[in-house]
Structure formats: C-alpha cells, structure tokens
C-alpha cells in the first residue's frame, strides 16, 4: 500500500532520480489488449528509485540483479517482477482495483483514497443498467444520500435530484450540474416560456445529453468537495465527464437497443363504464333533489348523451398504448502519439405510453485532445444535439389525460357520426374536451437544440506547475408549439388557438487555473490550485399566440386570424465572478488535509451584498497505514474522513405569480408588462431588498471507508449535518402596501443523517463472481428558525418541524348511518363532525420526507454471462393525491365521472361501512376538502428496479468475423413493485415533494440490446 502511494508520488513529480546502479533493464508496458501504457511508474522495491514509462510505454532503469521492480498504474493492479538476469522486461498490466481510481473533483482530480470529502462515483456501466433518456434516472439507488425521482413517466420528462435532503424552502434544491467543467443550464424553469413542461415535471434540458457519451458521474456531497463551487455548491454538485479517446488503434463501437414499456404500477385507478356512469348519474340527480325519480333524470341524460351517439368509452384505454424505445449509437475512439479522439453519433426514438407522446433525439459528440508540444495540450469537447418532444398536460387542467380519463363521461363517444372527434358536449361537459382528439389533433411540442463546447489549453510551465485556460459555452434554444383546435376542448370558444414560444439561453464561462503539485522530502505531498472564473448566462424569450383557425389541417401560427392577448417577451442575464483556491496535502499517504476557499460575486444580489466567501477544511487519516494496524490482515484500507465548511445557494427563483425575475429580486422596480386600451403601461413590480443575499450552508461530514478481505468487501459509513441559514423566503407584508411579500433571508433549516454503502464479493473465483451491495440513507429534516409559520398547500412550514410535514384536516371516514363524510374536530381525534367548518387542520405526524431509503443490489457473473439486479425502496413517507378532491369529489363536480374504486366503495345503504361518502350531484358538503388526510397515503414501496442479463460472445467465435467484442443483453426495469398502502392508486415513486399530480405513470420497460466492438 505504502509502496503504491510512494510510487504514485513519483509519478506526480515526474522526477526521475537515478542513483548509480549496476546495469540497465528496459521494456514496454502494455494493457491486457497490448496497447502501450504511458506514465506507468516503475520503481525498485524497497527504494525510492524509479522512472516512468514514456508515451509508447517504454522505460529503462538501472538495476542490480537481485532487485524487484514494482509497476504501478492508475486503474491497474500493481505488479512486482524480479529482474533476475533479464535485460528486457515487458509487462502486461491487468485488472483494475477500485482503490487507486483517480476521480474528477471540482477543477481537478484526486485519487479516491486521498479524498477528505464525501464523493460518490457512478460508472458508465451503472448508467447502462437503466436505459433512459437522461443519465439522471440511472443515478437512482446507486449513491447513498441521493434521492432521484422521475416525477413524470413521459418520454424526456424531468427528473429531480436531492443530495442529502431539502436544504432550501424557496431557492432551488437541485444540485449544480457541471459537464466537463461548465455549469450548464439544467433547470426546466430556465426555459419554460409556456406550460409545456408542467412546472418542470415534463421537460428536462439535460435530456440533450446522450448517456452513452458519459464516462462517469461524480457526485460531490459535502463541503470539502463542494465549497470550491462557492455560492452554488449548497445542493451538492454533479460532475459529468464525457468519454475521451485513448492512444491506440481505432475502436469502433456500435450499440443498438429496443424496448417496450407499460405502466409499472398495477393498482392504477380504472374509469367507469357507461352503465356504471349512468347509474351514478341518475342516482346522483335524484339524491341531489333535482328530480323526483330516476325516470325523470333519464330524460336529461338522454338529451345530453343522445342514445344514437352514446358511447361506452374507456378513455384510459383509448389514450394509452404500449410504449416503444429504440436507440442507435455509433462511436469511434483511439489516438496517436499526439492526438486522441472520441467521436460518436446517436439516435433515440421513444414512444410513450400515452398516444402520440414521444421523444426523439439526435446527438453527436467530438472530443479531441492534441499534444502540441511536450508542454502544451489543447483539447476540445463538442456536443450537438437536437430533440423533439411531444408532451401532455398534467395536473388538474382540462386537457390532462390522467385526469380526464376518470372525469370524462364514458357516455361521450370518441367519434361523432361524421367520423370526427366528438365535440357535441362542449356546452355542458368540461368544455367539450375530447382527450383522444386532443392527443391526436392538437399540438404540444418542444424542439430543443443544444450545443455544448469545452475548449481548453494547458501548459506545463515547469515540472508540477500547470496553467490551464478553459473556455466553455452552452447554447440552448427551446421552441414550444401548442395548438388547440376550434371545435372542442380549450380552443372551442376562439376558433382554435396556437401559441409559439422560443427561449434562447447563452451561457459562457472562462476558467483560468494554476495547479502545482510537489513532493517534499519524499513525505509531504502538496497540491495547490489557484483559479479565476467568470460566467455569464443570458436568456431571451418571445412568446406569441394567435386565435381563429379556419381549416382543421392548418395549425401553424401563420394561419391564425387574430393575434392573441399578450406577446410575452423578456431578456434577462446574470453573471458570476469568482476567485478560488485549494490546497491538498498529505503526509506519507497516511494523513490528509485539504483547504478550499472561494470568493464569489454574483449579479443576482444588490451591489451592497454582492460578494461572499465560502470555504472548507477537511482531514483524512488512513488508519490502516499505521504500524499498529499492520497485524490486522483482513483490513486492506481503513480511513477516517472529517470535513467542515460553508457553501451557498444563489439559486433565487423567479416569482411566476408576480412576474418577478429571480435575477433582480434585490432591485426596486417598475415593470412594463401591463397595457390598457392599446397603450403601454407601468406598475410597481418589486418591492426590492438591497441586502438580499445567498443562503448559506454549514456542512459537517464524518466518514469511514473500509476495504478488507483482499478488497472483496468495502464499505463507507457517513454522518452528515447540513445547517442552512439565511433561507430565502417571501416574508409576508401587509397586502395594503401593494406587495404581498418581500424576498428576504430569514429562516434556518437542518438536515442530518447517516449514509451506509456496503459491497461484498461473496463468491469470487475465476469463473464465478457474486457481489451483493446495499446502500441506505437515514435522513431527518427540521426547520430550526422561522418567525411565522407559512401555510403552503397541504404543508405548514413551522419552526421545530419537518419541512414536509402535512398540516391537514383529519378525515374520520364515513358515517355508516348517514353516509356523510366525517372529519375529526381537532388533533385529539376524540370527536367527529360532518361539517368541515367545525373541524380544524392539524399535524398528524405524516410527512412527505421518508424515514429512510436505499437500494439493494445483487450481481453475478459466470464466465461470459452476467446478471445484475437492483431493488430500490423508500419507507416512512406519505404522499398526497392532489387531484383526488376532484376525481373523488362525491358528486361535487356535476356530472363528472369518477373511478371504479370510488363507485364500488361508495355509501349507498344505511348501516353500510364504506370508504367513500354518499354520492349526490352538486355536493357542497366539502367532504372532498383537498387538504385532508383523506387524500394522503402511505408512500412505502419496494421496487425491483433492474434485472439485467448480459452475455459476451466468445472471442474465438467473434474473431472469425473480425470483431473485437459482442455483447447481447436484456434489461427489465420496474417489473415488480410492492406498496404498503392498499388504497394507493398512483405510483408511489412519482413525488419529490409528496404531491402526486396526474402525471404519466412510471413505466416498466423491457429492453434488448446488442453492443458490437470492431
């Protein structure tokens, strides 16, 4: 171990110190496939004498006959060879040990075992196990402390990630995404000119990246690793490194996959059929007192749903289908002495489980690196992508498929007598919505074009001292197109409407760094980083609409007759300007220390409070390298890490209700959006707060890493505490001031928890490898300072409580005698009432924050076969059915349909125990109060996330076809789910904040793939 470290140091200083030795031995070091390995350290065992292989993998070193040479290289097993009498000693290095992996950290790289911070690497292999549109999905279950939630199961939809809980109330909780050094535009909110993305759920700017281009993903969790990102590090940082070429002959890789998908969750609600709906309709009309008898009510029914056109439509069935995915990837990589390359092209086509819902992506990447001279290297990573997405509406809006599926009357047919989509119910039933027609005839599309480029030059000023200048840009253009026809549905009153909105985001960054690495007295290893960075992000939007479309086939804006209400347009920008430094030090690979410092200035804050300083200190102790541990043979490596530091969160959100731009919340402004009678006008827009600043976060991390039993078992246990303070809040004002609130830094919050990750090779021999893994996160959240409680929907944010604890009316079920709904009058739950006005909201110990979550993996490989399985789970949280109060409204919304669950479990006879109260139209009893425990369900689940079976064709077989490798694989995702709550009728995974909102259910997918290497 120690030797390994020492050898590595020698590599770092690239110093060759030769002492007088007997004779010279030389050789070539290659990898398993014979490609030369430059940079391998070659040392004489027991000495500090050594050298490094050159670009062709050659070395020579002076030795004595009795010497033993030690060969060390990152990512390979160390090898020892006795020199004997040989003068040529070639070595093929093999195997990779996890231990000496070099991983990318902010503005540099470090060996895994030198880390003082909490960092998790997710490899490309892990990404391949979950074939999806975006790499984020594949992170689920693969890193402790990370919650990954795909709230929407539609193709190309958004994914939320929480690193170690929720640290902010109003500012973003999403981590910072950095691709090859550039913090990229990652939030759907940054490009949401229309409601295409359903508040960020249904669209994802990161879906532009082809997951197959990613070499690995590094998640930075604690201050030691994130403080270098200063005012943007508080939510954790996700570093994405793309693939690069390696010296050697061209390797061509072709990969193709296709898959099928269907809803993963088996207990989704079912809609009524016509007979059931008719029964409910007639019963409900009589129960409401509108008619004396069902026969009289039948007359109105027959007039609204004429017998000759009456349907028996299963709207859910009509709107859904088996999804299909196909993907083709071709890449070539390789390199010569001075130039390495990785070039790829990819096409993805995904058809969703909802009719006409799809995602297409074309992307290409060219990563080049050229060595101009011994000292100067220039590289450029260029990624182009174009995607086309057809989405749906969610929530409780009238076009939302998973809302209308239950509310639409099954008596409404899909088509009318002319073969058109039926719209004759426009005057009395939900605006004449025809969700099938909407999906087929209307438009809801997004085109996204994205160019990301990272250009850098690094120059080695002298041994160990390197200057690097990196210039990156991310150009993003998003165009949404929405069309609603003029005959039925949302466009019916205006002869059809069309909306087109374009958002352009220009993001550039320049980063200048100096790094210096040295080893003093062969014991003190020092890495110093100094840097300066500037970034500017500009966004412009134009959003315009037209109404009045005369021909049903013509849906473009240009055909519309009447320009619509408002053309929205905006331009905004923000900039960051930063100085940063980091010093990493270690003593003999035993004691580690790191200090980082960043000074950030941001245009998002007022001139008086623009600059802030962020910092961290970290220490590590490799206990296993101490002499007293040498006798403990089953431990290979045992390391204790502690870090503490301060980071920030500068993600001030836009206030969409008041139209305030998050970039200028500090300023007192007049806005110019209003107009009246053709004249432009101005209104006071923001109250302004010149002292507005970022949220700060103190972050403590204590971790213990363990490798043992010849590296067959490894594990990490970490304790963390995140103390967020100066939380950005809308501090309520008296509305008589003309403003509802001032945005201010008030409020503190704490997240603390324990993460455990363990992996063990239970069986490991030449043919058979069986590995089990488990990772587990316990997390608690508490608001530690908040002057006034804030009611936010079903939650109330209150000091001393979990941020996500529900504050709701207590549902006490149905009175068997009367069929009335009952509420508990208060938290004592001792009395019930059928009048909601006599009840109050209270905390019932139900929170959307899980007690714990994690995953369990089991992977096995036997010869050329490999099997990977992963179970994910989450326990102790509650989820809220947001549309429940409408879909299960006890007749409140005349005469909308409902689900079979409600129909079959409604109260009909005195004395009957039932789940649902009696049903009557126009029910205003408010038993369907949305903020009540009636619509809360236990969110506990276990899901078989992945089963992947792969087979590598034998080399003997494929070499005849001049192929390098062929792998065929099949992957099943989400094929089994257990939930605790039998009454849960939506997918438990689809809430990040505990709120389910009629999104597309998550899919189970079966994917078949072939991967051919030439």
């Amino acid at each position: 171990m120690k030797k390994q470290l020492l050898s590595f140091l020698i590599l770092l200083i690239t110093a060759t110190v030769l002492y007088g030795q007997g004779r010279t031995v030389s050789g070539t070091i290659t990898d398993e496939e014979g490609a030369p390995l430059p940079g391998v350290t070659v040392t004489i065992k027991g000495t500090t004498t050594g050298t490094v292989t050159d670009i062709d993998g050659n070395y020579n070193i002076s030795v004595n006959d009795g010497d033993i040479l030690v060969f060390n290289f990152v990512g390979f097993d160390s090898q020892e060879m006795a020199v004997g009498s040989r003068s040529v000693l070639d070595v093929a290095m093999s195997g990779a040990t996890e231990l000496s992996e070099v991983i990318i950290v902010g503005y540099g790289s470090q060996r895994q075992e030198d880390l003082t911070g909490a960092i998790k690497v997710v490899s490309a292999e892990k990404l391949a196990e979950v074939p999806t549109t975006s790499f984020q999905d594949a992170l689920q279950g693969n890193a402790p402390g990370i919650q990954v939630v795909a709230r929407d199961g539609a193709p190309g939809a958004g994914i939320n990630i929480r690193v170690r809980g929720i640290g902010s109330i109003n500012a973003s909780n999403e981590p910072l995404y950095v691709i090859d050094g550039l913090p990229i535009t990652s939030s759907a909110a940054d490009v949401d000119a229309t409601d295409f993305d359903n508040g960020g759920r249904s669209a994802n700017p990161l879906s532009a990246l082809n997951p197959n281009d990613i070499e690995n993903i590094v998640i930075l969790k604690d201050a030691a690793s994130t403080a270098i990102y200063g005012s943007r590090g508080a939510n954790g940082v996700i570093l994405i490194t793309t693939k690069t070429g390696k010296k050697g002959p061209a390797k061509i890789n072709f990969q193709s996959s296709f898959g099928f998908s269907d809803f993963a969750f088996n207990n989704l609600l079912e809609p009524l059929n016509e007979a059931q709906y008719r029964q409910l309709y007639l019963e409900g009309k009589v129960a409401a007192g509108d008619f004396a008898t069902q026969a009289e009510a039948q007359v109105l029914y027959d007039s609204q749903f004429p017998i000759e056109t009456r349907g028996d439509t299963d709207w859910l069935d009509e709107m859904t289908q088996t999804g299909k995915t196909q993907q083709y990837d071709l890449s070539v990589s390789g390199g010569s002495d001075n130039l390495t390359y990785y070039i790829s092209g990819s096409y993805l086509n995904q058809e969703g489980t909802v009719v006409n819902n799809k995602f297409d992506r074309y992307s290409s990447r060219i990563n080049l690196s050229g060595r101009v001279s011994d000292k100067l290297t220039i590289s450029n990573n260029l990624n182009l992508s174009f995607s086309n997405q057809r989405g749906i509406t969610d929530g409780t809006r009238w076009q939302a498929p998973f809302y209308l599926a239950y509310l639409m009357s099954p008596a409404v047919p899909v088509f009318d007598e002319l073969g058109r989509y039926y719209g004759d119910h426009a005057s009395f039933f939900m605006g004449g919505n025809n969700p099938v027609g909407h999906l087929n005839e209307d438009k809801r599309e997004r085109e996204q074009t994205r160019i990301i480029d990272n250009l850098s030059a690094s120059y080695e000023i002298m041994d160990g001292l390197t200057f690097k200048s990196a210039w990156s840009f991310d150009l993003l253009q998003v165009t949404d197109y929405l069309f609603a026809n003029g005959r039925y549905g949302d466009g019916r009153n205006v002869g059809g409407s069309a909306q087109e909105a374009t958002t352009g985001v220009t993001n550039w960054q320049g980063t200048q760094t100096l790094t210096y690495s040295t080893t003093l007295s062969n014991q003190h290893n020092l890495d110093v980083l100094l840097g300066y960075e500037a970034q500017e992000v500009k966004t412009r939007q134009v959003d315009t609409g037209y109404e009045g479309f005369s021909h049903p086939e013509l849906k473009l804006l240009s055909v519309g007759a009447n320009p619509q209400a408002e053309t929205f347009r905006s331009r905004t920008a923000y900039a960051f300007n930063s100085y940063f430094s980091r010093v990493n030090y270690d003593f003999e690979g035993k004691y580690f220390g790191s200090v980082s410092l960043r000074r950030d200035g941001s245009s998002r804050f007022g001139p008086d409070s623009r600059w802030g300083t962020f910092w961290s200190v970290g220490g590590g102790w490799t206990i296993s390298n101490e002499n007293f541990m040498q006798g403990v043979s089953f431990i290979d490596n045992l390391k204790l890490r502690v870090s503490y530091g301060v980071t920030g969160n500068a993600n001030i959100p836009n206030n969409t209700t008041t139209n305030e731009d998050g970039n200028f919340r500090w300023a007192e402004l007049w806005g110019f959006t209003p107009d009246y009678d053709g004249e432009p006008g101005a209104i006071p827009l923001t109250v302004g707060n010149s002292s507005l600043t970022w949220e700060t976060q103190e972050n403590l991390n204590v971790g213990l890493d363990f490798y043992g039993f010849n590296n067959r078992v490894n594990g990490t246990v970490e304790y963390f505490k995140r103390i967020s303070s100066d939380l950005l809040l809308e501090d309520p004002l008296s509305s008589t001031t003309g403003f509802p609130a001032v945005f201010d830094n008030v409020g503190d919050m704490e997240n603390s928890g324990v993460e455990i990750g363990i992996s063990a090779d239970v069986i490991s021999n030449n043919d058979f490898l069986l590995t089990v893994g488990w990772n587990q996160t316990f997390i608690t959240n508490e608001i530690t300072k908040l002057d006034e409680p804030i009611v936010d929907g079903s939650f109330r944010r209150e000091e001393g409580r979990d941020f996500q604890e529900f504050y709701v009316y207590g549902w006490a079920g149905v009175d068997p005698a009367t069929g009335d709904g009952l509420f508990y009058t208060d938290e004592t739950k001792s009395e019930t009432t059928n009048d909601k006005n006599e009840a109050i909201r209270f905390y019932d110990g139900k929170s959307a924050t899980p007690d714990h979550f994690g995953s369990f993996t089991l992977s096995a490989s036997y010869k050329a076969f490999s099997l990977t399985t992963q179970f994910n789970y989450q326990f102790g949280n509650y989820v809220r059915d947001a549309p429940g109060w409408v879909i299960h409204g006890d007749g409140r919304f005349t005469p909308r349909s409902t689900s079979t669950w409600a129909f079959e479990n409604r109260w009909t006879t005195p004395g009957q125990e039932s789940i649902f109260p009696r049903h009557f139209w126009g029910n205003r009893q408010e038993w369907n109060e949305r903020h009540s425990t009636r619509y809360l369900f236990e969110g506990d689940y276990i899901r078989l996330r992945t089963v992947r079976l792969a087979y590598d064709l034998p080399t003997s077989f494929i070499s005849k076809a001049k192929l390098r490798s062929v792998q065929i694989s099949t992957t099943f995702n989400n094929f089994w789910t257990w939930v605790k709550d039998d009454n849960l009728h939506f997918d438990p995974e689809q809430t990040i904040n505990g709120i389910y909102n009629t999104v597309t259910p998550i899919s189970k997918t079966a994917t078949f793939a072939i991967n051919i290497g030439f």
Partner: protein
Amino acid sequence: MKHLIKNILAGCLFLIISSCGEDFLDIQPQDSISNSQFLQTLDDFEAAIVGGYSQMSLADWYGRYFLLIPDIMGEDIKANASANRGAAWALFLGAPTTTQNENREFWQEIYQAINLTNSIINSDFTPIASQQAALNQVVGEAYAIRALAHFDLVRLFAQTYSFTADASHIGVPIVTEFDVDSRPTRNTVAEVYAQVIADFQQAITLMTIGGSNTTFTREAAQALLARVYLYMGDYNNAETLATDVINSGNYTLVDSANYADQFLVGDSPEAILEIAMTATDNRGSDHIGGMYKETGYGDYLPAQDLFNLLDSLTDVRGTLFLRDSNLDGGIYAGVDGFGRRVNKWPSAGSAIATDNVSVIRLSEVHLIRAEARMRKGTPDEAGALADLNLIRERSAPSVTFGALAGTALLDEIMLERRRELFAEGHRIFDIARTGSDLIRTDCPAPGSCTRTYPEDRFILAIPQVELDSNPNMVQNASYGS
C-alpha cells in the same frame, strides 16, 4: 526554488489581469426600470396611469369579479349546481375554501392599484409649465382611481355606511403613502368615505382635459362621487353631482334598438366610464361574460326573481338572455320551461371577452338622481319620476307607464335599478345600503334563501394572508377569528 516562485507569481498576475472587474456583475434588468429612475417625465406618469387602468381591468377587479360577486350575493343571479368560482359568497358558506380566494384577489389587486396611484400622487416631479395641465390630468386620474379603490374596498369588506349611526364601524385601512413595514389597522367607514370624497373632489379639480370614456374624466369622477353620496345617504350632494353630469351634455341614453350593443360594442354615448377590453388586453376566458355563458365557465344563471321583473316581449332588457337546452327540465326551468343564461356580456368566438365593462353609465346616474330626489329631506317626486321614466320608457318603448308617487315610486325606482343594472355588480350593495333583507324565491341551496339585515355575510371575509401578515388586522364577524 526561485524559478518556481517567479512562475507562481507570474501565474497569479495573469489570473488577476484576466479578471473582468466589478462592472461585469453590474447587470440591470432590460424590461423594467428602477424606482429611482422612474416618474421623471410626463411620459412616465402617463405610462404609470395606464398601469392603473390595467390594474382595474384585471379579472379580479372590473374584469370579472367586481361585476360578479355583488350580484351573485343577491337574489337575481343564482349559482349553477357546478358553480365553483365565488360560490362561497353566493351561498353564504362562510370562510372561503382554499380554492376560492376572490376576497384575497380583490384585496391584493386593489391595494396594488392604490400603491401605484400613491406613487403618482406623492411624486415631487415638477413639469415645465406647458405640461402642467397634462400632468394635473394624470394626477387627477390617480386621485380618482385611489378614491374608487377605497370605495370598492369599503363596500366589499365593511358593512354599509348606515350600519352604525355615525359610520364608526370598522372599514378598511386607508393607504396614502408607501411604507414597506406598515401593518395598518382598519379605519372607520366614516374615515374611509371622507378620504374617498376628498380624493374624488381633488380629482374633479385637477382633471381639466376631457378624455375618452375608457379613462377617468371630471364627469366620471362626479358620477361616481354621486354614487358615494347616495351610499352615505347625503342625497342633496348625490342629486347635485348627478345633475352636473347629466347637464354636462357629454352623454345621452342610447335608444332601445341599440341598447344591447352598448355592452357588446362599448363606447356608447351613454358610457361615462368603462373598462376597455380590446383584443390584446381582454381577460379571455376569465372575462365576466364567461362566468354566465355555457361556452365559458357558466357558473351562474339568471334567477326566476330576475325573470319576474322583466317582460321579454316588451322590455329590451328581457332579451339579454340566451336559451340553454341543457338546462331543460327539473327545477332549472326558466320562464318558458327552458333554462336561460345571462347574455349581457355577449362577445364570443374569436372576439371573446372584447366587450368593454361598465364602471358607470348615464342610466345609473339618472337612477341615482331619481332615488336621491325621493329620499332627500324634501322629496322631489316629479323629478324622480321623470328620471325613472327616462330609463324605463327607453327600454320598453311600447309600454305606457302610469304615474307613481310616494313609496310606490321609490319601490319602482329600486326595482328599476335591478332591471337596469343586473350583472353589473350592484345588487348586494343596494340591498345592504337600503337595510333590506335578501329573499330568494329561486334559491340555489338551502341556507342561502333568506338573509335578514343586518347580516354579517353581506360582506366578504378579510383575506387570511392579511390576517397572517398583519397583527393589527381584525376579521369580519362570522368569519372566524
């Protein structure tokens, strides 16, 4: 080692030189202007006052709810079974549910307008002499909007003026200056009315330039002030101001043939102040018309009580309805057995929501004067009848109306207000200010059929957000703490 230090220093120097400097971070918004740079020219003031009208045109004020809520709380409009918006008030359910926040919207939008007008009124900008009259007009309009804003708030959130003898009961906070930290108490109703009168009078003095009927003019302020006096029971002043408006000669009643068009087309000779709803600034599906029509939300229906007042064969106002065959049968039958819908705000198709909405029109000024003449110390019955006849004969030219006197005449004037002004946002205010009971014969839900004056729920609840953020705020009776 020396070499090393030199290199590091050189590198540091480079980092510093390549810095962008402080102005790199000085990014100003491109679609808004900071307070300190605004209201510096006459143009700025003109833009600001347009913002004030835009505020009035919002769906939560004159765009929709202010013309809806007072009517649905009366007997002439009833909630459809599916009614959602405003139903808490229409059915006197008490505190609104979390989805129904019309009271909050009124409160916030109207106080926003007050803040805007305060910025204009309190500005110390001095124009060049030739612009003084134009600036005065703008400032006068700001006073008028502020007056109307306080008047509308006090009508919505406080009991009517005569609720106590000296109007000393709680009103709404008067705000004439911006103070971010203010947590005001409620002024008395008398204080609010005094402020409203002072502001309207200031407006009348300052506004010297005539305008269109979609912005405030001297006469619009006078007409509204007449209404204020009527609510206060100051009938002499109400009559005087109504007479000033009528005698200005700027307005004439439209004839029967064009009656309906004054709502659809707008800009009629009768309009004194109306809110413009052009193709670009209308409220779309949130327009007042959409609340009544089957093609909109269709939440509210005309009640039998209203049909009983209007003869569709002789009275042009009886034709402002549309048949809706889906309202056939059951208890929804209209006068002829068919369901009807209010069609006073009829714009449809690609011109949806483009009908201007009335704030005040000449016929109301006549009815104000008629009522004032009857109620004043020495009633002027002949004058009152003349005003009444102008209105009812215009709408029903074929009918010969007999003479009326005394209480019968006053009652008829009050009934005429219902006929003439339904769906324009007056009814519950008229019920309350005349101390009447609400009696619905066509009642949408039990519990809302009869409400006896004084009635706590003739006014709205103070919004919860205000109570939460302002410890000095007091909730209205019967709406909880």
